[in-house]
């Protein structure tokens, strides 16, 4: 069955109305048929009122199934985020399903700016230019003004064309105060060897719009600080020279090639190769670098500058193994990009079914472990030296530096009545940035690469 553009639009319309309504009510409104089986339009009970629509829309196979989760994430002395997500899936037929997802997250707290700690207190201008913030002696400079709310909506459909072929597509959009993103994706899968082997090809296109608070900083420009100017007007004039009006855009194109293979009755593997090209404004407008003298004392701060293109490659291998009472999953990912960054990631999940115990039905537990090591990009610098020629590209964002991260998580879930399921997840995320300690006296004894710890608590609910 070929899915037309009109068909997709109709499917998404029905899907969105039903997601926003109680399932039965939405069904009633759309079909004109009451729950008692009598038609509100006077037609017979078999008439849906949507006869002009294909059967796979007018007579869906099963009701919506929803997955919801709320995540609380908190870093020690830094960012806190609360993220809620709801995903609904509707099977219109044996071969066609639609998924809609809504995500809302709220972020607040402090984020590392890239500037170095100092043996004295430091003062920085806020990104808006409308104020200052101070950082105490020996403390990592954090901008504590981050506060953002992001809404993301997405819709996907997937369809089985034949026993060997499946296709899927999707759209998404997200908006936060200083950032917006839209994108489309699509792909196809081919199964052969009795569907034991599946080849897949997917592609995605995205466009992001960056509209930073206080406008886009001029790459490499020095941060204007009030105390260095005779009055407010002189400061504002200097601040304006470090800003470029207007928004900046970023375009991302991606391809993902996959091979899934069933090994035996309990084992399957997945191999993916992905390539992604991002072009446009890839700089973080809120990150800076310290410029220090021979003593290691900060003389000024410069806005960072990143290349306007990044080509990324990834290889991903996953093994899933079903045990008597559980599933073990292990994966390895290697990434490489033309910014000079390489990374290795190992991740495993071990799920164990406990059955019906302690009054919980279908109780299961899951252990999650993850380790990532990434090398620094070619242009990563923890600081600049006074008097040196300004590099074309430079960033002191620790996320572009040498970094190891460790994740430990546990999950407990159980079934409720009516096919519902509840699960709790608790996680710990530990970041260890690495770098050389410069032989500059003022920096001696200061923690230039502070460890970051974060706690995560998540509640999942399926209905």
């Amino acid at each position: 069955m070929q899915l037309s553009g009109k068909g997709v639009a109709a499917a998404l319309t029905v899907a969105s109305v039903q997601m926003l309504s109680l399932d039965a009510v939405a069904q009633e409104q759309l079909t004109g048929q009451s729950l008692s089986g009598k038609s509100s339009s006077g037609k017979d009970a078999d008439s849906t009122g949507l006869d002009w629509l294909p059967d796979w829309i007018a007579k869906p196979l099963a009701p919506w199934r929803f997955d919801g989760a709320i995540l609380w994430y908190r870093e020690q002395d830094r960012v806190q985020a609360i993220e809620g997500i709801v995903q609904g899936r509707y099977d219109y037929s044996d071969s066609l399903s639609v998924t809609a997802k809504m995500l809302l997250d709220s972020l607040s707290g402090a984020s590392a700016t890239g500037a170095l700690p100092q043996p004295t207190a430091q003062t920085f201008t806020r990104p808006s230019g409308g104020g200052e913030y101070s950082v105490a002696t020996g403390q990592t400079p954090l901008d504590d003004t981050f506060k953002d709310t992001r809404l993301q909506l997405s819709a996907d459909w997937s369809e089985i064309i034949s026993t060997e072929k499946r296709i899927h597509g999707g759209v998404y959009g997200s908006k936060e105060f200083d950032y917006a993103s839209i994108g489309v994706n699509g792909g196809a899968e081919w199964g052969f060897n009795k569907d034991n082997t599946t080849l897949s090809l997917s592609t995605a296109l995205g466009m992001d719009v960056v509209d930073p608070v206080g406008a886009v900083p001029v790459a490499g420009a020095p941060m204007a600080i009030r105390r260095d100017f005779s009055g407010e007007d002189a400061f504002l004039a200097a601040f304006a020279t470090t800003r470029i009006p207007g928004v900046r855009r970023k375009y991302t194109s991606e391809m993902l090639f996959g091979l899934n293979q069933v090994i035996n009755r309990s084992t399957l593997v997945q191999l993916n190769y992905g390539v992604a090209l991002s072009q446009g404004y890839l700089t973080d407008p809120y990150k800076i670098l310290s410029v220090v003298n021979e003593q290691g004392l900060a003389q000024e701060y410069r806005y960072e500058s990143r290349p306007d293109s990044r080509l990324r490659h990834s290889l991903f291998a996953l093994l899933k193994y079903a045990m008597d009472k559980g599933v073990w999953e292990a994966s390895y990912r290697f990434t490489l990009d033309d910014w000079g960054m390489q990374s290795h990631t190992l991740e495993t999940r071990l799920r164990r079914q406990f059955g019906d115990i302690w009054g919980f039905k279908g109780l299961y537990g899951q252990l999650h472990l993850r380790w990532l090591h990434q090398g620094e990009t070619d242009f990563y610098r923890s600081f600049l030296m006074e008097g040196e020629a300004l590099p074309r590209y430079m960033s002191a964002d620790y996320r572009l530096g040498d970094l190891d991260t460790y994740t430990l998580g546990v999950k407990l879930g159980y079934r409720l009545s009516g096919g519902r399921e509840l699960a709790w997840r608790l996680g710990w995320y530990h970041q260890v940035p690495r770098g050389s300690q410069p032989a500059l006296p003022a920096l001696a004894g200061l923690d230039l690469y502070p460890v970051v710890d974060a706690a995560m608590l998540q509640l999942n609910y399926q209905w």
Partner: protein
Amino acid sequence: MKTKLLSLLLLCALGGCTNLGVQPWERGVLAKPEMALDHEQLDLALDDHIFFSKEGVSGGRAFAGGGCGCN
């Protein structure tokens, strides 16, 4: 030459795959929801968002993406 070699390797790899696998009636365990490659989609999505925000790399299992000005 390089392309021919790669093609040969790919063919061998796929040829090898034909010796693997199960019969349709042997898929009982594989058909369990927790054996699906995209099982626990929300957990994966939330994890990806955290890692995307806090690390220098992303993607692999799914698209690398963009989509947020994460701090």
